[in-house]
């Protein structure tokens, strides 16, 4: 007897797409449609709030004629610096958590995960209190070491410190997952055959933990290129990033179409980087599923 047609209808394939439907609807109406809206709004004449006018490329001309490329370059430079510094800081720690520590590894993991749940503004504000004139650092130096220093805030290194600080967990945990994938026997074999520590790092550790390195770098890159608070809270007005340029167009300047065009350029730039990286390896490996 043939199974009734509805049984076939509820077969394994359909139940999968049915379960995916709520999520797909959320993405359609909460992600795809708003982004299309941004792209379309970028083509509207400047300083309007209406979406139904003849499209024009005027905003893009403004972007390329004025100095917006400067803030794009600043954002890129800050993001790249953050990624590189975090790779150097986090790799040894991730290695220790994945391969050396036992109970201590959990402690560090919990201590760092907890910080993720505190609003980044509050954590950045802690640095402001630490570094401002007569703050925790300045006050301590003046009282106990008799060194007078002015405020350490409002410069570029402090902005980078803020970004490194806020995005550290996003680099650390992918690295831990990546380094856990390195099989110990391979490392031991290399050592037995006379490889030195640097050779093992270059030829074994780094290539085998590459998925973690890539995911961590990508996450940090995307998060820090869109960062607003660090440059504002710690940097004063020293550097204008693309994200705060966009924010200005939407708030003080009230020029939504120009802000949208800027966002479109920014999204396109970010997406190119993300897709180039994501297309290069299999994500399922990192979630613990052996490739089927």
């Amino acid at each position: 007897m043939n199974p009734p047609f509805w049984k076939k209808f509820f077969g394994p394939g359909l139940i999968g797409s049915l379960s995916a439907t709520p999520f797909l609807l959320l993405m359609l109406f909460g992600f795809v449609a708003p982004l299309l809206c941004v792209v379309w709004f970028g083509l509207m004449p400047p300083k309007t709030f209406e979406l139904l006018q003849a499209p024009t490329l005027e905003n893009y001309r403004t972007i390329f004629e004025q100095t917006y490329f400067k803030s794009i370059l600043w954002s890129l430079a800050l993001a790249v610096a953050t990624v590189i510094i975090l790779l150097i800081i986090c790799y040894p720690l991730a290695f220790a958590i994945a391969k050396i520590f036992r109970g201590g590894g959990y402690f560090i993991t919990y201590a760092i995960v907890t910080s993720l749940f505190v609003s980044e503004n509050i954590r950045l504000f802690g640095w402001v209190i630490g570094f401002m004139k007569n703050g925790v650092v300045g006050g301590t130096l003046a009282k106990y070491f008799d060194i007078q220093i002015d405020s350490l805030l409002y410069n570029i290194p402090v902005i980078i410190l803020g970004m490194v600080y806020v995005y550290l967990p996003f680099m650390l945990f992918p690295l831990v997952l990546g380094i856990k994938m390195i099989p110990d026997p391979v490392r031991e074999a290399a050592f037995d055959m006379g490889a030195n520590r640097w050779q093992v790092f270059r030829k074994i550790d780094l290539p085998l933990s590459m998925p973690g390195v890539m995911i961590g770098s990508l996450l940090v890159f995307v998060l820090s290129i869109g960062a607003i608070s660090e440059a504002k809270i710690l940097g004063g007005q020293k550097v204008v990033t693309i994200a705060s340029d966009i924010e200005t167009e939407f708030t003080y300047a009230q020029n939504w179409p120009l802000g949208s065009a800027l966002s479109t350029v920014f999204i396109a730039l970010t997406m190119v980087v993300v897709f180039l990286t994501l297309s290069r390896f299999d994500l399922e490996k990192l979630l613990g599923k052996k490739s089927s």
Partner: protein
Amino acid sequence: MIVTRTQKAGFSLYAGLLLLVFYFPVFCIIVASLSERRFFSFPYPAEMMTTKWYENAIDSPQVADFVGISLRIAGLTAVVSVIIGFFSALAYARYRWKGRKTFQRLVLLPLFFPQSVLGLALLMWYNFLNITPAWWTAAIAHTVWIAPITTLIISIQAYGLDESLEEAARDMGASRWQILTKITIPLLMPAMISATCFAILLSWGNFALSLFTTGADSALPEWLYARMTTGYQPLVPAVGVLSVMVAVVFVIILFGIISWTNRKSRKSIASH
């Protein structure tokens, strides 16, 4: 792996130093929140320590408003994103279907997307739809970002789901609804509870998405940001510390659940 004692000590020292630097700002905020002076300077004498800013913060109806809005956003976000995350985790990890590989990549997309731009995009979309932004529109924004995270959290457990249990129930004549409520949901319950905690925590601390999508209702991180950029106010560190304490309570619940499920699964493996 074999490591010498000095190597281990070196790594421990490094980790300890990093943690100290990591918690330095938190220490600074606590110190500042207890200082009586209106303009903070360090170090201050011990008799100037006070809890009055905490009392002010708790008594302030304005702060209570922002907390209420943040809680409402976090609650709605958590409920919706866990329900959506439950089903999409099944699609992600459990069922074989045609679009699965693409779906798995799609899930990650909102996470790899700058949040402030997503918030702006939603603002324009609401404007286009003639919706006035309010706390619930911010909850939608948070859900777009948090539902992928809940999906991933529940997926990790769904990968370990014993398919034979569902099949056995089906063979014994259980309906799809019965399998869902009697087998699948109870088995994935620990992951769903952790996902709920994650969702509440991430929504509670989120600023970039709320900035553009809350409209006239302001969430707590937005209020703090506005106060921070306009000069020092002693109320800000106090509210900051209080907000951290709320988060810590949820973190303790979350870690309790995680270690409880780990112990349980280890026991069940041992008993097999």
